[in-house]
């Protein structure tokens, strides 16, 4: 999916930010907000998403000089967002690793998934269902699936995830496979 602003427009905003122009920062914020926010909501949940995006934008302002145009502006910003979300995820999952809590959580999810499920696993019935499937994926798998839907290439996903292009490709492959397994198993529990 094409981003609403071209990379050239974003580059002009970055140039302004580099010379400490706050109007350019405001424009970048507004332009990038919806794609960053939607990614953030799925990665860290609604409660933390707004803070995460603001934190990302503060980093953009403060470290604009480390951007050198080698990647697209949006790729660079997503890289920062991804790093910050990973940090939060590690904190969150440390809490969640309380086994009892996790077990209950998974049971609930399985139950939710079992309800209103289609018999054909290759067809994703509703938007709500896909949101639930995504929750079952690991942080890494969820991230790459979301990045693909944002229109990124394997090379760009590698930049965002700080891994080689081939690793990104393999990760997307495994993420899709995993997603299908989750769907199939949730279908079989209904039978």
């Amino acid at each position, binding site marked *: 999916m094409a981003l609403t602003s071209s990379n050239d427009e974003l580059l002009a905003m970055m140039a302004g930010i*580099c010379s400490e122009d706050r109007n350019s920062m405001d424009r970048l914020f507004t332009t990038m907000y919806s794609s960053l926010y939607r990614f953030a909501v799925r990665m860290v949940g609604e409660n933390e998403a707004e803070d995460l995006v603001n934190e990302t934008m503060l980093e953009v302002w403060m470290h604009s*000089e480390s951007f*050198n145009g080698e990647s697209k502006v949006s790729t660079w910003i997503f890289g920062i967002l991804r790093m910050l979300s990973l940090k939060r995820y590690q904190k969150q999952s440390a809490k969640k690793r309380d086994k009892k809590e996790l077990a209950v959580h998974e049971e609930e999810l399985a139950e939710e998934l079992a309800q209103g499920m289609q018999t054909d696993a290759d067809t994703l019935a509703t938007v709500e269902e896909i949101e639930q499937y995504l929750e079952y994926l690991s942080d890494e798998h969820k991230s790459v699936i979301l990045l693909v839907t944002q*229109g990124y*290439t394997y090379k760009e996903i590698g930049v965002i995830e700080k891994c080689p292009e081939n690793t990104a490709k393999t990760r*997307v492959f495994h993420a899709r496979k995993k997603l299908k397994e989750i769907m199939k198993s949730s279908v079989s529990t209904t039978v």
Partner: protein
Amino acid sequence: MTKIIENDDHEDFFELLPLYVNQSLDNAKMLAIEKHLKNCAECQAELAFEKSLQESINANETDVTEISQRNLVKFNAQLDRRLTEVSRTEVSRTVELPTEASVAKSDLPARRNHAGGSPLLERIFDYGRSLLTYRPAIGALAVGCCAVVVVSALSGSIDSGDTQSPLRSCEHVVKHHELRVVTTNSDSVSGSAKDILQEYFPDAESTIEVLDEGGIVVSVTGDTCMVPLLVNDLEKLSSVNSVTVN
């Protein structure tokens, strides 16, 4: 005829289907995939799956204009606050003038520490460094940014309303910080301190101890750049007499 996709076999096409759907491939690859799709049932099924997956994810897009506008206001306030504070501490540490600002903030940990820096930020910077083959225009931009930092640091402006200040030189270092707050109302201050901590160090480990002899001790492990902000907010609380950083 040259091969557009390596090996021209099913596996390669199959792996590219997500990018076929998100339209990030060049035309030659798009056409090659279309050609392969005509004769490959497995890829056709995968394409259907991939399409419905990406469509479902993209369909769930509620309007975020209101959230964006609200957060832009918040963002600008956060940025102002951070820039103002760093501008003050930056001046007090580099110029060392006995100005009001440097006296008031003389207890702040105005030091730099390259060892044990935040791994997160180091990774972000490493990433920047790893791409150091400058394109001329952007390279010039980067040099321009550095020049701005040097000039404004030397000019030593302490105008707290100056949002153009050189925050870039704040070193993000995660450390343990202990703040002693002298107050006549420990209970109410510790409640407020909890909220303020949450704002600046949402993920950090922190404790607030109410001392028998009065006052509280706030301990937190987190980004040093946020400490001046924390001190500033604590000092603003009505029943706080002083805040010192150990």
